[in-house]
């Protein structure tokens, strides 16, 4: 247990000074290719989080923990990567050439085969209780004081409306972007003049001031206020959301929805977003697991690698933590429909970027992939690792007045071998 029950403001735990020196130098070096907004970001030392969520539970066998030729290995072969000795599935040829920029964890045991529980555990780092998602926590502690965009954006065409911020301020809640179009009703109605909109905002502010004076009312006004602020930020960035990808981007990323979502994710990150989550649907492969992984990973692999390349090319890789993850993995046993079912006992994911040592493989599963055989970890350890990598002490308390709530599960700790 490393819990610190004393006053421990998370703001004090941030260590940006050392990072600033490095990124400023990097920004200067990249001066020729950076937009002013990107250069400002790097100068500011802002760190970011990119979550690439493969919804439904991708198969560890068909991605980062291949077992070719074994009882449950499936039909795919493993291929060498840019890291000597690190093998991944042949369905990820583009990632294979970039694994020296990423690391793999093969020994995650979530102890659940349930979509909802697995997802919440992976997002919250705790398997019970109301705690904020990793995205909300990152948004709270990484976002600049006056962000130009909502701090936690999720590009997805569907998904549950979770209470992602839990007890954190409402402005750190996840905001969903419906694919690659701006949310509905984002534009100011034609009949509402700029002056009228300003007067309305002033009136709302006056009401807020009076209303928040009442006992327990400040949280409500804050929530409503943050909704307006988010909308205003999005309205100011409407062009960014609606921009059609260039022909070159579509060629590199793919013209399919996931390709377009990743172009948007890149643009958001390059224009001040703090946390961007992009979801690729379609991994819950109870039937035809191999045909579907062939199709889905065929989309994912190149697209994700283009995103990774662009983040690196703009000098943001060292300041952007990148997660590639699911809510769990898939069963070793191949069922009658050539499917794999839900499996939380031996799950894999990839991490890279800010604070993560590249080219590392953490943990192992046994020969047939039926259980973790070395360095078992769970989503609690991962949660600690994300924030350690981002320069935030996960053993510190959240900045919630009157309460002592550690950021990470105090029973867990970071995966040290992954940290720079």
């Amino acid at each position, binding site marked *: 247990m490393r819990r610190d029950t004393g006053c421990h403001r998370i703001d004090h735990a941030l260590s940006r000074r050392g990072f600033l020196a490095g990124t400023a130098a990097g920004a200067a070096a990249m001066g020729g290719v950076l937009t002013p907004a990107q250069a400002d970001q790097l100068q500011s030392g802002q760190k970011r989080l990119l979550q690439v969520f493969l919804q439904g539970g991708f198969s560890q066998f068909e991605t980062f923990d291949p077992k070719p*030729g074994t009882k449950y290995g499936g*039909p795919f*072969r493993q291929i060498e990567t840019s890291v000597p000795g690190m093998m991944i599935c042949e369905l990820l040829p583009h990632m294979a050439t970039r694994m020296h920029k990423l690391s793999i964890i093969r020994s995650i045991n979530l102890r659940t085969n349930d979509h909802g529980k697995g997802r919440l555990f992976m997002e919250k780092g705790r398997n019970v209780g109301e705690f904020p998602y990793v995205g909300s926590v990152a948004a709270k502690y990484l976002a600049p004081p006056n962000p130009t965009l909502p701090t936690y954006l999720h590009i997805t065409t569907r998904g549950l409306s979770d209470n992602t911020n839990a007890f954190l301020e409402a402005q750190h809640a996840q905001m969903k972007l419906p694919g690659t179009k701006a949310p509905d009703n984002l534009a100011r109605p034609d009949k509402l003049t700029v002056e009228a909109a300003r007067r309305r905002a002033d009136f709302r502010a006056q009401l807020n001031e009076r209303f928040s004076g009442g006992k327990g009312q400040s949280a409500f006004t804050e929530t409503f206020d943050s909704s307006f602020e988010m909308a205003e930020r999005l309205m100011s960035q409407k062009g960014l959301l609606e921009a059609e990808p260039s022909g070159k981007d579509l060629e590199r990323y793919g013209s399919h929805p996931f390709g377009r979502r990743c172009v948007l994710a890149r643009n958001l990150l390059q224009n001040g977003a703090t946390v961007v989550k992009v979801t690729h649907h*379609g991994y819950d*492969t*109870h039937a*035809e697991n191999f045909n579907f992984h062939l*199709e889905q990973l065929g989309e994912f692999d190149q697209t994700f690698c283009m995103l990774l390349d662009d983040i690196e090319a703009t000098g943001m890789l060292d300041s952007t933590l990148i997660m590639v993850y699911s809510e769990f993995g898939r069963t070793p046993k191949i069922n*009658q*429909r050539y499917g794999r079912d839900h499996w939380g006992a031996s799950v894999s994911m990839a991490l890279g970027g800010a604070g993560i040592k590249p080219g590392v493989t953490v943990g192992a599963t046994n020969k047939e992939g039926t259980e973790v055989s070395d360095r078992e970890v769970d989503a609690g350890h991962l949660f600690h690792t994300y924030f350690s990598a981002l320069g935030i002490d996960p053993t510190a308390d959240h900045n919630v007045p009157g309460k002592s709530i550690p950021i990470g599960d105090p029973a867990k700790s970071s995966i040290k071998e992954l940290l720079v």
Partner: protein
Amino acid sequence: MSNRPAPPPLPDDPIDVKQSHVVAEFQHDVALTTCRLDPQARFAFAGAEDFNVYRWSVDGGNESKTVFSGHESWVRCLDFSPDGERLYTAGYDDRIGVWDTAAAKPKPLEMIEAHKGWVRWVKVNRDGTRLVSCGNDNLIKLWSLPDGKLIQEFRGHERHPYAVLFHPDEQRLASFDLMGNIKEWDIASGKELRSFEAKFMWGFDQKFRADMGGARDMIFSEDGKTLIVAGLTNVTNAFAGVHNPMILLFNWENFEPQHKLTDASYKGMSWGVRTHPEGFLAAVGAPQGGSKGAIWFWKPGEEKPFHTVTLSHCGRGLDMTADGRRIAVAQFDGLLKIYQLTRKS
């Protein structure tokens, strides 16, 4: 391990599928992917989820099991030279294997680097001088035999072609892809002649944003007038395998669907189909939800199968002897069964 004795000699009894019974049973410890009987019906072959192909002597018991090892991935389609001397295997390792069918210690005579991506189908023509294949590079390829040289490529499928066949006139090919597209090809020119979208054998899962479809087995009627395709229809949840098995009888002359055979009491997939000399069809099916599989016997044009044999598990492949007296069925649980379609001796 099965101790079932060797099957009795074939009787002269009339065909009566309602009295179908198992005369030989072979057990493997890994799920099977497909099965074939060689042209002389000496051997039963099966692919498995362990990269190997297995051979049993039909009258040799389980002890006759012989492994054909050489592929580095699953094999889901097998075919033979007309004389039965050569076995051709379609590997998910991008290669076509060439084997001595009856070898005591089989080794690949050749491994042809055939496609960029899975080889999904191989088929030999009637005189054994040509082989056609299709793969995940969306190509259909024509090879000369026995030298294994590439003669022609056929381009036009935009998604994975699942099966390809020679038309009995040997001038044309038929192929079927993931999206339900049936294509006719001119062998001499390599040109696409006709195309039909059998969308009822495909579905786009709106929730998961993915396509589900394709042929799982495909044959021509002896007269070449009908293309017969095993697969699925009524896709409601692709990722859970919620759809119905379907056998499509496709009129090759007017290029239109002729009959769509489905048994609504089963969910899942049809993995194999054969025509019987007496005019009916035998098809094998896979379950969704429950564990039982089925062999269906259909008369073309009738709404329901006239007989169904329940299988302990999903049937994943079907073949029939030339005289129609026996069929082989490969199952998910590793069982390969030989059924006799007559009364018990």
